[in-house]
């Protein structure tokens, strides 16, 4: 009775360096966009470096994975960034972490590693031990103030700005209260999760690590990981498990959107809205707590299924809570939408044109607000979405308001989805642990996170390990669009514009090794004693 919804989600194609650009162009013109890419150190197998470009073809409902390889002694492949802007960051990342160079890439600057990281040290190569410490070279940041003249002011935003809830750095160039340009420097929050997972963790430990990629949409990451592995190993997942996964994913989406509404209100100076939205969100947190035993980081997913089942009376309670959550959200949203000056702050602000959106390959609400009709849940059905029915809201305003409206519609879609799931929840097992892990199988799992498409790629390593794990969070694709949105806007609008992609920097930054910002540790040990010592 079990089945895998994941059949035929992707095709891995080996392409030769000279034809890759052509293929990519074809795909892009066919309506596909660049999802993500990873570099792999495959030297232990075949003495070559490999680059996997994952390209999402929503129309065909399939991911095309283009695999390029390069010999150990000359690790260099042609760049596809000139053809498709969206590939820029992925290629720079591969260059940083694995040391594959991309010929005629527009700027193969450092993206992830700190400025003072020594050259020629590639942390994601297999000959780099995960616990090795690297001494910095004392280089300084190089991004700031290229576009400065005496009539322009450069306004720093971050790394510790109240608007950003995580450390990132924007530099705005302002002239007469208008933003004439913006620089971005990210990846301050380095945690080295990939390395950790590949070298120190077992198959069923990684879901919990994946969940901690993001504090808000963790469940979607663990789900994507599990799907990738299930895909690689051809695991049959029980139907009930799939339903429960969808359930939690939707609960998470509601919670995430309500949170965003709150933050948006706060950034627009409307703190009451902030409070009220979070009041509504509280019920959703209660639902999560009821079902999974925790308000956040549900820890529900395992390879092959889920960990907790739903009893009948839990379902009843959940429905009751859902009732209240929906009522409150409806009330607050109606009020907020009724506030003219608040809407005016969002209308026509932070415009991202459809063309740019396509080329950069933005995902989720940002894409849907720019008139791109894409949604992984519908285009690549996973979990239980195949047999649930829901609408995908698309707006053509291309501005912050449209993103706001998309999220509103999605929230209420999710409420109905949760209901559907709870109503026709199939009986049966919730996990299937009878499976064997093949060696060097490729798997791709993707989910529609609250912020957009979330892709995990896995190469299995046999004996309960993964050889390569590459998660890509939605913000990774949305962030490059922010400088475009900021151009020509009022300084006062910068916060809401940056927030309008619902950025999740820690998601984006999961992949690297050392923490550039780490200060020295004053004292490690019993707090009382530490306090004592620091006093002296």
């Amino acid at each position, binding site marked *: 009775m079990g089945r895998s919804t994941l059949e035929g989600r992707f095709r891995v194609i080996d392409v030769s360096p000279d034809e890759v650009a052509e293929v990519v162009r074809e795909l892009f013109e066919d309506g596909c966009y660049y999802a993500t890419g990873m570099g792999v150190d495959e030297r232990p197998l075949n003495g070559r470096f490999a680059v996997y470009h994952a390209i999402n073809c929503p129309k065909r409902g399939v991911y095309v994975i283009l695999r390029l390889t390069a010999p150990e002694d000359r690790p260099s492949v042609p760049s596809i960034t000139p053809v498709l802007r969206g590939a820029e960051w992925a290629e720079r990342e591969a260059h940083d972490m694995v040391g594959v160079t991309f010929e005629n890439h527009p700027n193969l600057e450092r993206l992830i590693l700190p400025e003072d990281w020594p050259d020629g040290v590639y942390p994601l190569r297999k000959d780099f031990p995960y616990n090795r410490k690297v001494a910095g070279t004392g280089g300084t940041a190089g991004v700031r103030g290229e576009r400065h003249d005496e009539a322009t*002011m*450069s*306004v*720093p935003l971050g790394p510790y*700005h*109240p*608007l950003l809830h995580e450390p990132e750095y924007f530099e705005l160039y*302002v002239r007469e*209260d208008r933003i004439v340009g913006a620089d971005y420097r990210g990846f301050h929050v380095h945690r080295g999760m990939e390395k950790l997972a590949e070298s120190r963790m077992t198959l069923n430990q990684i879901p919990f690590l994946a969940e901690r990629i993001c504090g808000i949409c963790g469940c979607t990451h663990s789900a994507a990981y599990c799907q990738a592995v299930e895909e690689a190993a051809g695991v049959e997942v029980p139907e009930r498990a799939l339903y429960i996964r969808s359930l939690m994913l939707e609960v998470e989406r509601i919670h995430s959107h309500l949170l965003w509404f709150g933050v948006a*209100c*706060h*950034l*627009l*100076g*409307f*703190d*009451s*809205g902030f*409070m*009220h939205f979070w*009041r509504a969100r509280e019920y959703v947190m209660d639902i999560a707590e009821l079902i999974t035993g925790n308000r956040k980081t549900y820890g529900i997913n395992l390879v092959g299924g889920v960990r907790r089942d739903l009893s009948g009376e839990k379902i009843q309670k959940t429905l009751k809570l859902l009732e209240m959550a929906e009522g409150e959200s409806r009330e607050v949203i109606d009020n907020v939408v009724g*506030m003219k*000056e*608040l809407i*005016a*702050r969002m209308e026509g602000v932070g415009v991202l044109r459809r063309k740019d959106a396509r080329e950069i390959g933005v995902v989720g609400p940002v894409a849907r607000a720019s008139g791109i009709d894409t949604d992984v849940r519908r285009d690549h059905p996973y979990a239980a979405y195949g047999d649930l029915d829901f609408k995908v809201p698309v707006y053509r305003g291309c501005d912050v308001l449209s993103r706001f409206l998309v999220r509103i519609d999605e929230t209420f879609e999710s409420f109905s989805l949760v209901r559907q799931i709870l109503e026709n929840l199939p009986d049966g097992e919730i996990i299937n642990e009878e499976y064997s892990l093949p060696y060097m199988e490729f798997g791709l799992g993707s989910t529609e996170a609250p912020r957009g498409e979330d892709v995990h790629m896995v190469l299995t390593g046999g004996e309960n390990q993964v050889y390569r794990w590459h998660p890509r969070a939605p913000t990774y694709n949305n962030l490059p669009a922010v400088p475009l949105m900021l151009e020509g806007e*009022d*300084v*006062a*609008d*910068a*916060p809401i514009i940056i927030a309008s992609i619902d950025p999740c920097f820690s998601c984006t930054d999961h992949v690297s090794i050392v923490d550039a910002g780490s200060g020295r540790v004053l004292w490690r040990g019993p707090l009382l004693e530490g306090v004592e010592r620091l006093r002296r």
Partner: protein
Amino acid sequence: MMPELSTLVNVAFVVLFAPLLDGIERRVKARLQTRQGPPILQSWYDLIKLLKRPSIEPSGSFGWLFRLAPAVALSSVLLASTFVPSLLARSMGFWGDLIAFVYLLALASLFLALGGFASCNPYAQIGSHREISLLMAEEFSLAFIVAGLAVSAGGLAFSAMFPLPLKASSVVGVLAFAVMVYVSGARVPFDVAEAEPEIVEGPLIEFSGRSLGLMKLTAYVRRLLLFTVLLNFVIPFGGVLRSSVYVAALLVLSAVYAAFEAYFGRFRTADAVRFLKRFAAAGFVCWLLAVLGW
């Protein structure tokens, strides 16, 4: 009672009561946001905490101006509180009139801005120039209102203006003035200068410890004085009755204003200026009525 004595009482009252008023407003807002909210005395606790802390001066700041700013700001509002009758009807009325009052409040925000610039912090600079832009826009509306009231009262001295004669013009003027009280109290949506998520408290960003305490106290006293003048326009009688009515009215006013504040989002500077520019029409109407003798 001698004016000197009652003035002392008034100043003391203003200084002590202004933070309390803020505490009440915070409580009201909390209720409207379905929160418990801090205790009424919270603003006082904060002030005391700040006044205990030493203040830090940003290196590369315009030292003495940076230090001077909070001191001048506070002393100008306190000076205003010496000749505006608040708790007791009698005060150093002969020290100043409405014009002096307006100028002293402007002086306070002027030095807030200067202090911001003196800190040489980018956010402070942005915030300060917003503050001044808003000040200009306020004066644009306020000027007509003042002129209107002056005409209908036949003078600018408090002796002539408190209370205003019962005319159409004075009614319009007082209503318009009430709006200006809201605006120049730097309340949402007009708090563009201190917008926390954008420019991190703007001019105040570098102020800390005592100097920040003084700045905050200045803001509280400023709000209280604006309320006071507004009430003086309407409260007709003196004596004990006046004091009690006055305090009660203060509480009501601050509750109402806080409630309004809870239901607005922040303006852009341009929006705020545009609003005030349009609002000048109300002031003009007031003036017109006054000149027509209504």
